[in-house]
């Protein structure tokens, strides 16, 4: 039997656009049409002013490393030690992710380092947004 992989999300009607986006190679955020607040995680109204008039936008995929831990215990789908990171997107919101194409060490993982999104397909339904050190 193959080892179990990492926990995967189960999209809901309110988050489907986000997970459709990652499959299409897009990082999708939402922005309020009334107060211009850009927010995450997804919901069909603005968490700042409660307006239901919101739009989906394609984020730039640029971010900085805000904070992280390097986890040393075994978790299905991961080879410890690995970083569990929070990135701050250029558009403002934060999201949890993993940092790839980078040693998982405090020396390599410097806070505020620039990052860019990459998409890692897990199966036919789910693609996850991960981040790597920005190139150029």
């Amino acid at each position, binding site marked *: 039997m193959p080892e179990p992989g990492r926990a995967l*999300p189960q*999209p809901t009607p309110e988050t489907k656009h986000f997970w459709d986006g990652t499959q299409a190679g897009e990082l999708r955020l939402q922005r309020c049409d009334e107060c211009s607040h850009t927010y995450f995680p997804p919901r069909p109204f603005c968490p700042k002013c409660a307006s239901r008039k919101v739009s989906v936008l394609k984020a730039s995929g640029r971010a900085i490393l805000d*904070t992280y*831990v390097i986890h040393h215990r075994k*978790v299905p789908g991961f080879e410890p030690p690995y970083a569990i990171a*929070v990135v701050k997107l250029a558009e403002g919101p934060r999201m949890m992710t993993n940092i790839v194409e980078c040693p998982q060490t405090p020396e390599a993982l410097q806070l505020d380092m620039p990052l860019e999104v990459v998409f890692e397909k897990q199966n036919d339904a789910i693609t996850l947004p991960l981040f790597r050190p920005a190139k150029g």
Partner: protein
Amino acid sequence: MPHNTVAVVGAAETTKLGVIPDVSQIQLHADAALNAMADCGLKPKDIDGVATAGETPVQIAHYLGITPSWVDGTSVGGCSFMIHVRHAAAAIEAGLAKTILVTHGESGRSGVGRGPRPVPASSLNGQFEQPFGPMGPPSLFPIPVLRYMKTYGVTHEQIAMVSVVQREWAAKNPRATFRDPITVEDVLGSRMIAYPFRLLQCCLVTDGGGALILTSADRAKDFPTKPVYILGTGESVETPLVSQMESFTSSRAFSVAGPTAFREAGITHKDVDHLMIYDAFAHLPLYGLEDLGFVPRGEAGRFIAERNTAIGGKLPLNTNGGGLSYMHSGMYGMYALQESVRQMRGTAPAQIAGAKISVCHGVGGMFAASGTIIFSNQKP
């Protein structure tokens, strides 16, 4: 509204603390409740309000044979019990109940009579955090720490002193799980769990419980125990996702709950003789000291490293040894409350001589929730 008209008259922990493989979770609630009732000479028929978390108030009322006219099942993690005390004080003042029992019991280590608690894949946590490899609080709670350290220039050695100082307090508590002294080198040499935190910066995982009984201050004088009055209370919640905190250097929930309690109590920081700050992990006392306004932003690491919270220091903190050394069943808030009550009764193993006001501050989830209670042994 200032809650100086309500008092704790019964308080007790479970008969045993630590590893209790022969008692189920609901019986830990009951053992603590029976001890608290014995403490103040009450029977189940005398209780008309029940608040609990972990189990439901239905389970606890039925199991103990109580017919309540008021219940509270607020379950927002380890500070639920602070919030229960707040709600209970308001309920007693409003006349909704006369005598309220708050119970906690948790088979956190042995897992007896306790089911698994999976994160649903469709929840916000399941969609936007779990896929990136967290495994419970030790991987999630320390997420903000590196940002806090960089912002204020706080060192690993300063944070290690939280564990060192609390172990010194634990050494004075016969019921503490870990009592042998440790050094900064021991902390920074212990097994890495989730960088920057190592084993000795993470709480214990043990079994136990505790219970409180509250009634009006007017009735409190008729009980055999020394009344411990509720001076002020506060509560708040922020987010179930640690990644979505407004700030990684401060807890919004702490910043609401703590100051609310101080305003209700009408006291200032220099009035505080004793302080409990829920320490599931070593950074929580730092955030608590700053968010409650005991020290300026960024100063808590130095404040603790300079032994201000240690034995003989000006602000005794976590005098039972805390979740890092005393015990931690999962929802530790009840044990912090018990220590505040002991200090106000004058019965704590590491008693602060002459202490009149104790602040007890709790966290729930990973900075998800907070509750603060300010106690006094002085008649209002």
